[in-house]
Every structure is written in structure tokens, then in C-alpha cells.
């Protein structure tokens, strides 16, 4: 089944709005890193945070106490629906599905809730915070804001979870009573997340992210959300709201690797399946960690001539949101016929990286490759109809 993207929404450390963020990426801009500290540690980290201005105008009673992760998701989801010209009402509330991609979830409130338990005791545990610690809190807030009454799923995983959520959306849309599926990926940052990834030797203390570098100095976390509205290509008027339709030709569910060294094999298999039709460019998930090497070697083996782009040096590694961000980048590249420059990349890389703005006019196919650091890999192919 071929699904089309009817609308997209984007909340990133470079602001919000599809075209606004895209223009900044094209200009080679990079988000500013913000220091993150914690009371009980001397160690500080850097992260790419979403500017407050990106959430201006987002007011709903349901979001009053909601965590950032839910607010990012709501902002991106509402933007995507608006772009798709989809208004949810009592007539169609059961015909719209929501699928959320989450990785670390509401870490800020989770830590705050547990901190109270540890510091003061169980009697200090907050009944207001606890529900916000649950993985599906962002999905339930957006469902309530929209009034969606049918299928709502939250899928959990690593950096590949965004594409796995799109795969699930594809499965869900086999139900012909559904008209649309809104897929949202979202993530927030906390000091503990940075510390966790650092202890796992995946995070560096300060930018830049150097993609595909042999040194593998690590990633910087980014936060925000990405959203796409999927519908069947037959709903042409909706699909064409944003110009020529971008379709999701194939989602490859990839698989799970046991050891890091096995990721490459899985990526090769995924890429081979996805590149039956020639790909004009690849949106990679390279983020300065071990996955870069796996992706580089897989790309070299399967499609060495494809132009490769990654936005992570500019926006950070947003884990649960990253797959959706990659799909948005791929769709924008196809639609606008141009790719932004890959920042901080080795100019002698064996890959065809877009080191400066690269025209890709006439491009019709793009591959999105997502390799997570927690054993999951997935890919998909986008096409410009």
C-alpha cells in the first residue's frame, strides 16, 4: 500500500515550521548548544534545546501541566494537520488514527517524581506528575486536544522508532475505515539522559557532531518533535495541498542487531531491499557514534553513488523524533530539489556527502535510513509522484 504525506509539522532547536527550519538548514545554520547541569553533579553537558518561541501560541487546558515532550508533540501534530487541511470533528474523529514514536519519554517529570520519592519519601510522591511519566502521555494529550476517539498507539524504541511507527501506521491504514494517520515522533532532554549516553560512550560534552568521522567522538542530544499526516494516494485533493505528492513507497521494518558489529549487515539488507529502484539521495542517521561507520560501510556496498545528507550536526540527535525529522528532510529535498550542507563532515569522506547546498533537481526517490544505538534499524523509501 502506498501512502502519501498530506502534511508535515516540525519543532526543532532551529525553531518551528517546515519552511522556516528548512531555510535555516539550507543556509548552513546550526542550533546553539545550551549547557545542562544537575544539582548533584559537577559535570555539565551541552544540548540543542527548542527555543521558547517555537511553542508560542500553543495554549490548551490539557497542556497546562503537560511536560515539554507533550507540548512539542502537540505543536508538531497540529501544524501537520493544518498543512494537510484536516479538521478533526465529531464526524471524522473515529477515522483518524494517531501513532506516536517515543524513545526516552517524559524523562524530566519522571526524574522529578522519583527525586521526590528518594529525597522525601513515598508520601511526597506527586499524583499530578505520575501520569505524565507514562510513555503514552503525549499521545493521550494530543488525542484529547483533537478529540480523536479511535486508534491511538505509542510505539517505543530507539532512534529507529520513528520509522517503525510509520511502519505501524502503514499496517494500521490497512483498515479502510481510516482516512488518515497522524504519526508524531517526540523527545525531550534532561541531564540524566545526557549522562546516561555519556557513560555509554555515545555522547560528547560539547558540539560539534562530526558525522562519519573515524574518531566517533559522539553525539549531542537535540529535542523537539516531527509529525506527518498519512493518507491514501486516492485522496488526491488533500495530498496535493502542499504541492506534488510525496509518497511512502516502502517501509522496511529492518530488524534488531545483537552486537554493534552486526548493525552493518542489517543495514546492507535493508538498503538492498529499498534500493530496487535507484535512489537519488539518502537521508542518513549519522550522529557521530558507532552507527556512522555501519551506515557508511552499508552505503558504500549498496549505493555508493547516492548523495548522502544528515541533519544531526545542525539539530542534534533527537532519538524518538529523529526518524520523523529524517522523513521531513527527505520530503523537503524531493519537493524543493535541493539538499542543505552536511555540517562538520570530513571533506575526504568516501561517501558523496552534500558538503555545501546541493541541487537535486529531478530527484524522484529518496531513502531514509535510521540506525538506533539500542539495537534497532529501519528504513523507508520516499518518492515524488
Amino acid at each position, binding site marked *: 500500500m502506498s501512502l502519501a504525506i498530506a502534511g508535515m509539522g516540525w519543532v526543532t532547536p532551529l525553531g518551528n515550521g517546515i519552511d522556516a527550519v528548512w531555510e535555516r538548514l539550507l543556509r548552513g545554520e546550526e542550533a546553539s548548544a545550551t549547557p545542562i547541569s544537575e544539582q*548533584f*553533579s559537577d559535570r555539565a553537558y551541552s544540548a540543542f534545546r527548542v527555543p521558547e518561541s517555537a511553542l508560542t501560541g500553543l495554549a490548551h487546558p490539557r497542556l497546562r501541566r503537560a511536560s515539554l515532550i507533550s507540548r512539542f508533540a502537540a505543536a508538531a501534530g497540529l501544524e501537520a494537520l493544518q498543512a494537510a487541511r484536516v479538521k478533526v470533528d465529531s464526524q471524522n474523529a*473515529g477515522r483518524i488514527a494517531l501513532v506516536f514514536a*517515543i524513545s526516552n519519554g517524559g524523562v524530566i517529570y519522571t*526524574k522529578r*517524581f*522519583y*527525586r521526590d*520519592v*528518594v529525597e522525601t*519519601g*513515598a*508520601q511526597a*510522591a*506527586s*499524583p499530578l506528575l*505520575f*501520569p*505524565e511519566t*507514562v*510513555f*503514552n502521555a503525549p*499521545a*493521550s*494529550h494530543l*488525542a*484529547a486536544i483533537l478529540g*480523536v*476517539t*479511535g*486508534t*491511538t*498507539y*505509542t*510505539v*517505543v*524504541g*530507539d532512534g529507529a522508532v520513528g520509522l517503525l511507527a510509520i*511502519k*505501524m501506521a502503514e*499496517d*494500521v491504514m*490497512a*483498515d*479502510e*475505515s481510516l482516512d488518515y494517520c497522524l504519526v508524531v515522533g517526540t523527545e525531550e532532554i534532561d541531564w*540524566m539522559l545526557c549522562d*546516561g*549516553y555519556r*557513560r*555509554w*560512550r555515545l555522547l560528547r560534552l560539547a558540539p560539534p557532531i562530526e558525522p562519519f568521522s573515524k574518531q566517533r567522538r559522539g553525539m549531542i542530544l537535540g529535542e523537539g518533535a516531527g509529525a506527518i499526516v498519512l493518507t491514501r494516494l486516492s485522496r488526491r485533493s488533500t495530498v496535493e495541498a502542499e504541492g506534488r505528492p510525496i509518497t511512502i513507497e516502502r517501509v522496511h*521494518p*529492518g*530488524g*534488531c542487531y*545483537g552486537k554493534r558489529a552486526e548493525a552493518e549487515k542489517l543495514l546492507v539488507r535493508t538498503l538492498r531491499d529499498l534500493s530496487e529502484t535507484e535512489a537519488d539521495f539518502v537521508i542518513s542517521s549519522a550522529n557521530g557514534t558507532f552507527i556512522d561507520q555501519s551506515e557508511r560501510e552499508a552505503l558504500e556496498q549498496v549505493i555508493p553513488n547516492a548523495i548522502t545528507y544528515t541533519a544531526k550536526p545542525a539539530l542534534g540527535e533527537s532519538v524518538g523524533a529523529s526518524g520523523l525529522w529524517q522523513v521531513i528532510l527527505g520530503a523537503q529535498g524531493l519537493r524543493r530539489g535541493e539538499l542543505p550542507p552536511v555540517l562538520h563532515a570530513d571533506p575526504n569522506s568516501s561517501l558523496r556527502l552534500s558538503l555545501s547546498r546541493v541541487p537535486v533537481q529531478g530527484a524522484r526517490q529518496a531513502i531514509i535510513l535510521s540506525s538506533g544505538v*539500542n*539495537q*534497532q534499524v529501519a528504513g523507508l523509501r520516499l518518492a515524488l509522484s
Partner: protein
Amino acid sequence: MVQLGSPTGEETLARVAVVAAGVVSPLGFGLAETLDSLRSARNCVTPVTRFSVAECRCKTAGQVSDEHLLAGLNKKLRAKRLHRASHMVIHALREAMIQVPEFEPELTVIGTTSGGMSYGEQYYRSLRQSKNLRHAPTWIANYPAQKPVIDAQLEVLGSSVPCQVIANACASGTNAIGHAFECVRSGRYQRVLTGGYDAISELVFTGFDSLQASTPEKCRPFDRDRAGMVLGEGAAILALENLELARKRGAPILAEIVGYGISTDNFHITQPDPSGIGPRQAMERALQSAHISPGEVDYINAHGTATIFNDAAEGKAITQLFNGVPVSSTKSMMGHSLGAAGAVEAVICLLGLRHQFLPPNINFGALDDDLELNVVANESRSAAVRTALSNSFGFGGTNASILMRSVGA
């Protein structure tokens, strides 16, 4: 309405068989022990031992014995320091795969709510005390929700297949089975592993206690004097296959999944709409999806957490839809295992269908005056059970129901 395929013909939809199942819960390790506990109406709720509950109202939970869980671990597994949740999923998957060693899944769909949460707790406590961080990388690596699923696949299957981990709060397990069912029913997949897992943790225990959703007393679903839930833990796996293909290859067919319904009621993040509309829609949609009438349902395994709000809303919905169908909440015996609950309860329905009995709702005194339910009170009953409905509802107003049927019924 959840209806797959061509609007003109249900013949386009595949039938979906359960060809194997495995379970670990406070009721026991494996199908046989679980059946024995259900038949003898065993109360498997015990004082919490994994962390201090001195300041909590509730002091008990349904717990899986570590002694049994970790017994016989080989050196390789021991060295990995996997989370308890991984061991539960490994046990459940191993039991299922022994029944169908030739089963090659294309996809795994598993429900959970909290992954390896207790490792996150250890990490936080150690950070605060600035000590004992030697194992931090292990805790962090084993914390993610997909990890137990991948561990179990690699350990039992020897390889791993794509997995979708659904975290829809307490409805996760039923949502996972329901989604897996629809994947096979639509013809997009032939063989899918599904189920759910969750291991008890201090954070989640304290959370439910803070909401005053858990009780210092016994768990008494649908009782006039119910005072709340007790938590539990466990894992259950079901192997689903296109029924026709399963028959062709001579696979054992334990039961058929015939319907799935999902709804979102948007009333409140922790409370159901008191009208019962969310549960009612989920059950109605499951019935519509299965093309059967309420009168054909012989048993309902209720969500039945024993909280005031859940049981009132669910009881109202069941009363509105069904006429005197036997109902029980097996959470009374083993606690609420959150993401595992729907999967464990699906296995319980499977046992009821296979062995023709109704699992009991223990600790039951008198029915809530506002409800009209036929509760299977305190003892299991022999009965002709051909079709069973299992409900799971969760935070965020997410509701799910699945319908299972004896093969040939």
C-alpha cells in the same frame, strides 16, 4: 468501527489462530502452573519484598519469584546482567516456542509500560550518592523497553525479527495482541509473535500509591467494598498464525482470535469516563470486528482493577452490552501486571476455552449495588466456554478488547 479489508466481503480477511502460548506470572511459571492456580482460586498476592513500601498505603503485590526466574541461568546469560523483565520474556517465549519449534515469525508486537524501570531507579540513586556507578552502562543498556524483547528473541529464536513495542499504558498487552491480530487478519503477515511484559518497580508502585489507586486491603474487583488495586508483574507470549496455513502444516491450534476493538475516551488522563463509553466502544468494536452478537460471548475477563472508577465504568458498560455473561477479574488473584496484563489475561482466556472453565474473581463479598453482573465469585466453575472477551483499559483513556474463540466453535 474497526473493520479490515473490503467493505463488501469478510472473505478477504484471514482467520487468525493462536498456535502456541507461554506465560510467567505470580500464578506460576508456564501454562500448567497457571491453570492449576486458576482452578484452585489461589491468592498469589504477597508482601512486597523488592523495595521498601514502609511509607506506602499499599504493601502487597503479585510478584514473580526471582529464585524460580533466575534458576538454571547459564553463564552467558548471567554475565549479561539482563533485567528481570528480560528473563520473564525469555521464559514465556521459550515455553511458546517449545510448542511450535518450526514457527518463524515475521514480526513481534509486544506491550509494556515501563521497560527496565528498576535499572533506571538504580542509576538515579547511584548518581545521587555518587557511588556504585560501575554497572551504570549495564543499567542504561538494559533500560529501554525494546531490550527484553530483543534479548528474548536472540536467546530463544537465535535471531531477531523486527519488533514493534506498544506502550499504551495498562492497555498495552491487549493492544499488542489486537494489532498483531489485525496484521495477520489483513494478510500483510502470516506469523506474528505477540504479548506483553512488565516487571514491578518502585517508581510505578509509588505512583499508583500516590494516586490512591492501590489498596492496603485485598483486591476485590466489582465488590461493594472494593478499595483499589494491587500491582503485579509477568510476561506472556502468543504465537499467531494465519489459520489456514497453520492447519495445512498441521500446527496445534489452541484457539482463534476473532475480534479486536480499540477506543480512546479522552475524559481524563487517569480516570475513565464514568458513563463507561470508552470500554463500551472497545467491546462493541470487538464484537463488530468479529461479526458476533453479545449473546454469543460466554465469558468476560474484565479489566477489573478494583478501583472505584474503573469497575464502575467497566461494570456499567458490561451491563449495558451483555445480559448475565459470567465475568471475572483475575487481577484479584495476581494483581495488575500493567503492560503484561492483557497478554496474561489472554492466556487465561485461552486456558478457559481449552479446559472449559471460568476463572474466578476471588476476595469477592457482595456485588456493588450499582452493577448488575454475573461475577464468577471466589471459585472457578466448569462451563461451556466457546467465546471469551478480554478487556484492558489504561491511562490516557485508551481502551482495548479482544475476542477469542475455541476452534471449531
